[in-house]
């Protein structure tokens, strides 16, 4: 598409933003898979519409504030990237655009407070625990609070599982086939520590030594995806120091973290060369747990005694669209004796979790959650497997709201001994 953006005042991320605009031919193939377009039906809430709007803003024809609501509505699920025949890397436009626009943005006090609360709690497991206790107190009055806070409180589980500490090293069982470092994540560590525990067991059983760096922190993806680049970079730099270089891969069990860490080179595009090089060196090693296990040749658990089970696989957007990983988790699940894999309708449409989207845009997120639960329930599966903690909580929550609770687990938990 033709444009008149001058990249001189956009800095190094200018080129990254221009490329998708040039590549977009406005054919509209992205429309049906876009969660906001498919619920709202208007062009400004579609990928190609947003590309048009960002182009006009970067050209200086309209103010960023005028297009804010439509940019904010985007879940960043990247379903449009999967459906785009022209190869438009929408993610490489929207993330830097959000960061660029954030600098010019005047947020209301309540918005600032909400984002502050979000970024100060979710990435810190201990604070998250405290906050969730606080949330349970406020639950009865959640509906009287400002929308975002209300959603935050509503989505917090009543009770968190017991805190779990990890050793720094877990040796491989049998002959060592590889050595990896595990990102334990932040929110996931508070909500479901069992996921990382399962990942360590499965890796060990597959002959992989696992290192869990003690000084690691949040990967910064949450901040990055809402345009808070500075905070995201701070988090990333901390982990560059925390993670050892002598590992084959840096493993994550959360799709959102994986996709964010794979985007570090874009996050650091504007920084000096040392940081950028470090970002590239780190990012190249990042692998999703399923991607890694599939690559090394997964040895399935002995589950000959386990009863047969029907599993519907839910594609997490940040795994399927952002990292283009769809077949690996399916292959892994199908290799486990007794598992029958089912495919829900509308696999490409987001469940509405999308990082902090279900907190910042609770109405759209609720609609998407309802729709996803209906599609999953229609499969008749005994249980749902997915690769992201956000999806897991969102689906569980909305299935409870609909009073047809679904059991949702992380894929890795099914690859563990049953």
């Amino acid at each position, binding site marked *: 598409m033709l444009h008149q953006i001058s990249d001189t005042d956009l800095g190094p991320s200018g080129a990254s933003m221009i490329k998708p605009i040039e590549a977009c031919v406005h054919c509209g193939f992205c429309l049906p898979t876009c969660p906001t377009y498919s619920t709202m039906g*208007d062009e400004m809430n579609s990928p190609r519409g947003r590309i048009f709007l960002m182009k006009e803003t970067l050209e200086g024809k309209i103010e960023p504030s005028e297009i804010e609501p439509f940019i904010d509505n985007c879940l960043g699920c990247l379903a449009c990237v999967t459906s785009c025949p022209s190869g438009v890397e929408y993610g490489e436009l929207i993330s830097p655009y959000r960061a660029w626009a954030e600098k010019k943005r005047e947020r209301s006090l309540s918005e600032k407070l909400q984002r502050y609360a979000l970024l100060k709690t979710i990435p810190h497991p201990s604070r998250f625990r405290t906050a969730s206790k606080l949330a349970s107190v406020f639950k009865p009055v959640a509906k009287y609070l400002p929308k975002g806070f209300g959603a935050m409180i509503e989505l917090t589980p009543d009770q968190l599982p017991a805190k779990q500490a990890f050793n720094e090293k877990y040796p491989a069982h049998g002959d060592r086939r590889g050595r990896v470092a595990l990102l334990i994540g932040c929110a996931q560590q508070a909500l479901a520590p069992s996921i990382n525990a399962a990942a360590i067991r499965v890796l060990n059983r597959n002959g992989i030594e696992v290192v869990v760096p003690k000084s690691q922190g949040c990967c910064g993806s949450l901040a990055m995806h809402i345009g808070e680049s500075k905070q995201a970079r701070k988090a990333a730099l901390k982990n560059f120091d925390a993670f050892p270089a002598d590992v084959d891969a840096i493993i994550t069990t959360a799709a959102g973290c994986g996709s964010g860490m794979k985007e570090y080179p874009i996050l650091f595009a504007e920084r000096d060369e040392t940081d950028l090089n470090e970002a590239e060196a780190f990012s190249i090693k990042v692998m999703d747990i399923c991607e890694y296990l599939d690559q090394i040749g997964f040895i399935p658990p002995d589950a000959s005694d386990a009863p047969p089970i029907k599993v519907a696989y839910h594609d997490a957007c940040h795994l399927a669209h952002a990292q283009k990983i769809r077949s690996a988790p399916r292959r892994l699940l199908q290799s486990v004796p007794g598992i029958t894999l089912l495919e829900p309708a509308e696999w490409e449409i987001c469940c509405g979790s999308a990082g902090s989207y279900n907190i910042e845009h609770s109405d759209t997120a609720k609609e998407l959650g309802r729709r996803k639960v209906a599609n999953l329930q229609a499969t008749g599966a005994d249980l749902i497997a997915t690769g992201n903690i956000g999806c897991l909580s969102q689906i569980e929550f909305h299935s409870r709201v609909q009073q047809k609770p679904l059991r949702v687990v992380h894929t890795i938990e099914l690859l563990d001994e049953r």
Partner: protein
Amino acid sequence: MTSFIEKLRQIYPPERLYEDEARLIPYVSDGLTAFREKPAAVVMPLNSEEIVETLKLCHEHQVPFVARGSGTSLSGGSLPISEGIVISLNRLNSILEIDPDNRTARVQPGVINAHLSAAGAPHGLYFAPDPSSQSVCTIGGNLAFNSGGAHCLKYGMTSNHILGITAALPDGEVVQLGNDSLENAGPDCVGLFVGSEGLFGVALEIQLRLLPIPETYRTMLASYDSLEAAGDAVAAVVASGILPGAMEIMDKLAIEAAEAAVNAGYPQDAEALLIIELDGEASAVDAEFEALTASIEKTNAKEVRIAQDNDERLLIWKGRKSAFSAVGRLSPDYLVQDGVVPRSKLGEALKEISRLGAEAGLRVANVFHAGDGNLHPLILFDGNEAGALECAEELAGKILRYCLKLGGSITGEHGVGVEKLSFMPEMFSEADLNAFKRIRKAIDPHEISNRGKMLPGKEAPALSHSGPHPLEKAGIISRM
């Protein structure tokens, strides 16, 4: 205009009446971005009554309107008019009825083509017209442009599948054209409305024909050393007496683009790829397949491959159907043409296209419905280079004129829109065009329904397509 907008506000709440820049900009183009025009307003009706009220208002104030579905037109068919409004039909997307016994359906205009087939599937039925954009484009748009698709070789265009239309004429009067009966009395008014590119008003409800899903498919890929050889193979298949469901050709550039987009597994070393699909009852398809194999064996194909299962078949089609947009990977901009030539002159036309492309110094990718001679040359250019668009348009003009010279048409399925307006006087005589205009005037005296599309206006359009578009000169459209 102010009082008109004032009255629109009485029909639509603010969240369904767009007047601000940010909500108008995404509507400036459809699938043809070389032309962009910002409308005065966009409205999003939820029911037929709102559409009728809107049309009455437009008629009263003589404000032009453009009805728009998913905005995938490749000819600028849904390009807005600056002093007019866009009526977005996306929320009128209900399938009102499927009658499995009579194999008919009744739908609203904003239903997506593929959604209709999906809804028919539990009854063993589908909607046959399959434009490449079927996952996005709407039935209303298919009807307005008489869309085709790969399988229209055997099953015909959209017009063959529309039984009746409940239409709002441009003055808001609601009429029933045809009905859901399979045969009808009187002149073919449905036929007149279908393919009229929105000049006769807005379809509120569409009654259409569904077909039983073929019992079986057999999809063959044959690769060749030249486009001509692939074209000859098509002629050989037709001569053998088989009528395949589809016969499509892609050239090297198109194969490269489609492969990059969807990894369809197309042979990469071929100059041309022929996709042939047989469909129907298993016993008939088996017999046809034998005949097909026999004729393809004589054609010097480099490689012949048969889709082993439905997934492989779908992937082959996904590649083909993504080809246009996928060409966006090879070049920042392209123009796609839609000329038709008699099937017997395919080889000749392709040779001339490649000669003209070389002469202009532009790359041309070819993807086309070989079975019915519907060419889709994609002219690649970089719009940021001065004069490149004009050069591409000039080449497009030469190609279309050559199609006419061979006895073909300037469009097969994309429509005239704004893009091919200036070629209308080359395809039709003055008397033909005047007759079209009289019919249009009788139905729409103020010419408010999709003004500026298909029929050249009062100002005589230039016969040459080089330089600014005649509509640009007239100040009706502009490019940004």
